[in-house]
């Protein structure tokens, strides 16, 4: 065996080992070697293809002209404008959105999409832009600051809903809490605000914000009791897109842009 070949082989093994060690210790460094084709294609074409199921007002639905409109549509347009891109809204059934993303039919999903930890190996998610989970809500003058104040209180829930489930959970730790079920969210809110037959309600944040923006005198107290955050989904390889979305969401949060979207779209 030629002595040079032996050294060459040894050098190869050492280089491979060091490279493997570096990738293992600093996984982010691998990104330097990869291209974000999603982001580059968006820049080349000047278009951000966003998948959504326009059947969930106020986040996305079809307006009188048959065009998608709503919180998510406006959010996508604002982000794209900041990038100097056009938005192409691609209507897709809710259960097929992530498949469409993974097969490259779209660049992102913005469709009141809840975060799913189980999908994080296949999908990259943004930070939440809206928390749709269950909150305790009450009248501003009710003197209830959180679930610790529910002793001997009557709490309204929509029968069978996640709010009902959270209420039954609270009942196990606060047995004097009385749950009052109603058939619909509207009846539940009415019982709190108008009839005042309940002291508080457990309700999802979409319904709560809709009621607030439409003038109902009720406030959320305490932290979210069952989280269900809405996020933007992107391909795992789209790390530049992910960073750009993160930056835009941070900006919108800091400048009140997200609050303005709620005020604009959470109306009857």
């Amino acid at each position, binding site marked *: *065996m030629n002595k040079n*070949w*032996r050294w060459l*082989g*040894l050098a190869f093994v050492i280089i491979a080992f060091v490279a493997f060690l570096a990738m293992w210790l600093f996984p982010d460094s691998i990104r330097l070697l990869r291209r974000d084709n999603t982001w580059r294609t968006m820049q080349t074409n000047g278009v951000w293809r966003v998948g959504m*199921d326009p*059947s*969930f007002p106020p986040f996305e639905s079809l307006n009188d002209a048959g065009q998608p409109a709503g919180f998510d549509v406006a959010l996508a347009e604002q982000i794209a404008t900041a990038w100097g891109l056009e938005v192409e809204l691609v209507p897709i059934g*809710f*259960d097929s959105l992530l498949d469409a993303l993974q097969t490259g039919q779209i660049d992102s999903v913005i469709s009141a999409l*809840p975060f*799913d930890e*189980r*999908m994080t190996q296949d999908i990259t998610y943004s930070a939440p832009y809206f928390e749709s989970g269950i909150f305790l809500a009450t009248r501003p003058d009710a003197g209830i600051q959180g679930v610790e104040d529910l002793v001997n209180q009557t709490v309204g829930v*929509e*029968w*069978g*809903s996640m709010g*009902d*489930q959270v209420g*039954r*959970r609270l009942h196990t730790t606060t047995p004097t809490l009385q749950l009052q*079920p*109603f*058939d*619909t969210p509207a009846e539940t809110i009415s019982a709190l605000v108008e009839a005042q037959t309940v002291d508080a309600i457990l309700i999802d944040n979409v319904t709560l914000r809709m009621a607030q923006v439409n003038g109902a005198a009720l406030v959320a107290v305490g932290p979210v009791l069952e989280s269900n955050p809405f996020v933007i989904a992107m391909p795992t390889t789209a790390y530049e897109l992910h960073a750009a979305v993160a930056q835009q969401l941070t900006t919108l949060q800091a400048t009140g842009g997200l609050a303005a979207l709620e005020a604009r779209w959470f109306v009857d």
Partner: protein
Amino acid sequence: MNIRWLRQLLWPAVERPRRLLAIRIGLLLVAGIGLIWGGLWLWRTYGTARVPLGPQQTVVTINSKIGVHTRLTDEVEPWKIKRTLEMVRAMGAPWIVEYFPWAYAEPSPGRYDWSHHDLVIEHANRQGLTVIARLGFVPEWARPKDSTPLYLAEDQFPAFANFAAEFVKRYAGKVEYVIIWNEPNLSLEWGYQPVSPEKYVAMLRAVYPAIKAANPAIQVLAGALAPTLAPPGSADGMNDLIFLQRMYDAGAADYFDLLSIHAYGWYSDPDEAPAADVVNFRRSELLRAIMVENGDGDKDAMITEGGWNDHPRWTRAVRPSQRIAYTLRAYELAATEWPWLQAVGLWAFRYPWDAKSYQDYYTFVRTDFEPKPLYLEVQRYAEGKSP
């Protein structure tokens, strides 16, 4: 082949004693890895299975027709299987429908692995539950390459019959009901072939006698048709009412003992009148009428899938409060007005993991075993309490 150069490359000029030491260390490492792997295999195979069955239980309920379709097929942890079945019993449901895939039990021809099926059936029996076993899911060796596990060619019907016979023989006295296949009127469930009532009857003709020969006491359910309004010639499937009539025309009556019905309510209440162009809970009555018209009125039926969904975005869903009210009414309707129906196995008790789709809103219990309000209301109903 001379590999001396490779040895020299990877292991240059090492002294013999050191080489021997390295070989010994290597062998020790291999033996250690082998021991760890073997220990893990033993623990997975036998250790986790040692979840005690517990004392014999009975189901206490005011409605003996309450049932659910469990989803234990892919539930690998024995304690979760036991916990699921305990909760079914505690809800007051005496019946479960469960899927027992052929591919899991017979991974190669004639070589059986019953461990998972044993686990489910033993725990179900111990909880006092009656098991309705759904059979299907073709192993790779019994179907062409690149076909789906729901594809079964006619020349493999005897192999399926053989498996079904082995199944009912093994579980004699433990499983009294088996369903042959699932929703054969959907192309998806028929291995993406054009659906064919006649071919399904050919399957029944092959499987039924084999089952009866192996265990004459077993009751064989057929049908399990998907409620669908698929138009004639649809590539997706065939209208269930038409499919059932064609089953009878092909001579199905002699090859099943009960009809399996899928009764989904979609957005209608359970009392909505049945109609041929509507999918609702009482569509079951139309299937029953076809049985009677074909002189099969002496046979009973069972609902082995069905129910309502309360997903906030699915177009065929109802409000959560409606789902509870409709479900309770469906169980009551079956108990008081449908003497020809033995059980109502609604879809689905619990999933092993979240589907993160509308499917999650069919369940009675969350994946973490927290009961949904629906579960607690059915439990109250089964105890004779008002909602």
